[in-house]
C-alpha cells in the first residue's frame, strides 16, 4: 500500500512538471555523457600506453665503417672494445633499475633486416654492410625514462646516435590528455548545471505540492515519507539521464567510432572496444545517484522543518 502510494505520488509529480523533469533528464544525460567520454578516453589511453610501451625500445646505433663525421664516430667503425664498453655500461648496476634487457644486433643482422624491410626499393640497393653498424636494442622497464640511457651512453666513443621510439607517441598522448581534460572540464560545468536544475525542479515540485505536504505534516506523516517522493523523483530523472548517457556512449563507439578508427587509425589507435562503455557505466549511474542525492538533500533540508 505504502509503496504503491509513494509510486503514485512520484508519477503525479512527473506529470505535473514534465518540462522540468525532461530538462533534468537531458542535462544529466549530456553531463554524464561528457564524464563517460572522458573516462573512456582514459581507458583507451591506458590501454594504448600499455600496448605501445611493450614494443617501444631505445636503440643505440653504433658507428659503421663509412661514417666518420657524425656522432662520436671520428675513429671510424666501432671497435669491439668500444662496443663492449657500451654494453657494460648498459648492463651496469647503476642502470639496472631502468633497463630490462639489452639485445645486440650485429651489423650483418641489421643489414639483413634492412634488406627485408626495404626489398625492392632503391634504399636496399644503396645500402652496403659498411654503411650500417651494430645496433643495441634496450628494453626499458619504464619507457618514459629513456633519457637515463641516452645520457649514459650517448657521448661514449663509437656511438653514432641513440634513438628513442617513444618520441613518436608522446605528441599523440599529449593530444589525448588535453582532449580528456577538456571533456572533464565540460563535464564539471554540466554537472553543476545539472545540480542547479535538479535543485530547482525539486523546489518547484515541492512548491506545487505544498498543499499536500502541509496536510501530510498535519496528519503526522514522517519527514522521510514527505520527502521520499521528491527525492525519488530527482533520482529517477537522474537515473534516466545516466541510462541515456550509457546508451549514447555505447551507440557512438559501437556504430561510429569503432569503424571510423579502424578505417583510419588502425595501427595508431588499436581497437576501440564498445564494451568499455560497460566498465564506465556503473560509475555514471553512481554519479547520477550522487548528483540527485546531493541536490535533494540541498533542497529538502528546508522541508524537514515541521
Amino acid at each position, binding site marked *: *500500500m*505504502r509503496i504503491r502510494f509513494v509510486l503514485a505520488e512520484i508519477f503525479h509529480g512527473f506529470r505535473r512538471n514534465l518540462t522540468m523533469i525532461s530538462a533534468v533528464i537531458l542535462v544529466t544525460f549530456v553531463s554524464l555523457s561528457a564524464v563517460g567520454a572522458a573516462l573512456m578516453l582514459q581507458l583507451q589511453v591506458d590501454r594504448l600506453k600499455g600496448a605501445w610501451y611493450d614494443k617501444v625500445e631505445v636503440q643505440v646505433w653504433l658507428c659503421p665503417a663509412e661514417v666518420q663525421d657524425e656522432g662520436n664516430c671520428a675513429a671510424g667503425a666501432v671497435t669491439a672494445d668500444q662496443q663492449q664498453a657500451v654494453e657494460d655500461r648498459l648492463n651496469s648496476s647503476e642502470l639496472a633499475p631502468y633497463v630490462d634487457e639489452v639485445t645486440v644486433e650485429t651489423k650483418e643482422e641489421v643489414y639483413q633486416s634492412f634488406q627485408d624491410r626495404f626489398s625492392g626499393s632503391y634504399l636496399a640497393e644503396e645500402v652496403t654492410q659498411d654503411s650500417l653498424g651494430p645496433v643495441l636494442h634496450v628494453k626499458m622497464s619504464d619507457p618514459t625514462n629513456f633519457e637515463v640511457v641516452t645520457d649514459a651512453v650517448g657521448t661514449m666513443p663509437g656511438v653514432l646516435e641513440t634513438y628513442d621510439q617513444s618520441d613518436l607517441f608522446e605528441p599523440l598522448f599529449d593530444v589525448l590528455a588535453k582532449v580528456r581534460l577538456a571533456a572533464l572540464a565540460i563535464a564539471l560545468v554540466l554537472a553543476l548545471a545539472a545540480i542547479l536544475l535538479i535543485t530547482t525542479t525539486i523546489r518547484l515540485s515541492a512548491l506545487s505540492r505544498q498543499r499536500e505536504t502541509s*496536510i*501530510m505534516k498535519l*496528519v*503526522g506523516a514522517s519527514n522521510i515519507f514527505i520527502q521520499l517522493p521528491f527525492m525519488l523523483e530527482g533520482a529517477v530523472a537522474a537515473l534516466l539521464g545516466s541510462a541515456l548517457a550509457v546508451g549514447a556512449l555505447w551507440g557512438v563507439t559501437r556504430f561510429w567510432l569503432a569503424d571510423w578508427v579502424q578505417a583510419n587509425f588502425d595501427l595508431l589507435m588499436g581497437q576501440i572496444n564498445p564494451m568499455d562503455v560497460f566498465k564506465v557505466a556503473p560509475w555514471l549511474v553512481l554519479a547520477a545517484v550522487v548528483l540527485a542525492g546531493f541536490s535533494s538533500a540541498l533542497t529538502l533540508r528546508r522541508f524537514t522543518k515541521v
Partner: protein
Amino acid sequence: MTWPGDALVTSPTAQKGQQRSAVITFENVTKIYARGARPALDGLSLEIPRGQFCFLVGASGSGKSTLLSVVLREERATSGKVYVLGQDITRMPSRRIPRFRRQIGAVFQDFRLLEGKNVFDNVAFAMQVIGRPRHAIMRSVPDVLKLVGLGGKEKRMPHELSGGEQQRVAIARAAVNRPRILLADEPTGNLDPRTSEGIMTVLERVNQTGTTVVMATHDVGLVDRGGHRVVELVEGRIVRDESSGYYGGDA
C-alpha cells in the same frame, strides 16, 4: 474500540491529582512571534480535561489560533510548559513530532482539501501517509464518512461539494485516525448559520466518541447554544472561563 495513545495516560501531569484527566495543560505559556512584538499568548495557563468540548472565543488577534498551533507544535512556546497527552511538547525533539500529531486531528476555516482527489481519497490520504494497511482504510473511511453525514458521496470531487460538505470531509479526515484531540480553528467561518449548525452537530458527534474537541470560533449562535465550556481570550490572556457559558458572558 482502542484509541492510539491510551498508553500515555500515566504522564507527569497525570500524577498531580487535580490534573488527572487533563489532555491539554498550559502552564504560564508565553508566545512572542517577533522580538519586541506584543505577545500572542501572555503567561497563559489552561487545562482541558479529557473528553471535554471547549470553545475558545475572542476577537481576531486575541491568540486563539496561536494557542491551537502551540498545541499542534506548529509553533513552539517562547516560555512556559505545554503538556499535551501527557508529554511536554515544548521539549519534544522535532523527529518525534509527526508521531505526536497522529493523535491530534485539525480542521480549519479553509477546509484544506486536496482538489485532485475525491472524497474517499481525501480521507484515505490521512491514513495512507501514516502507513495504515489497505484493509484498515477500506473499513474506516466509509465509517467516518457516515459519522459526518457524507455516506454515499465517496466518489465526489471537492469542487462538486458545498462548503459545508467540504468541511465535513475535512472533519472526516481529521477524525479518521481516531485522534485523542480534535482542534478546530473557526471551522464555520466560511459557512452560513444553518450549515454551521450541521458542522457543530458533527463535531459534537465526534466529541461523543470520546475525542476532546477544542474549537476557536466567532460564531455567537453556536456558542450560545450552550452546554459547553467557554474560554475567552483578550490579548493572549484568559479573561473568562466558564464551564457552561455564552459567547458574550453572563450579560
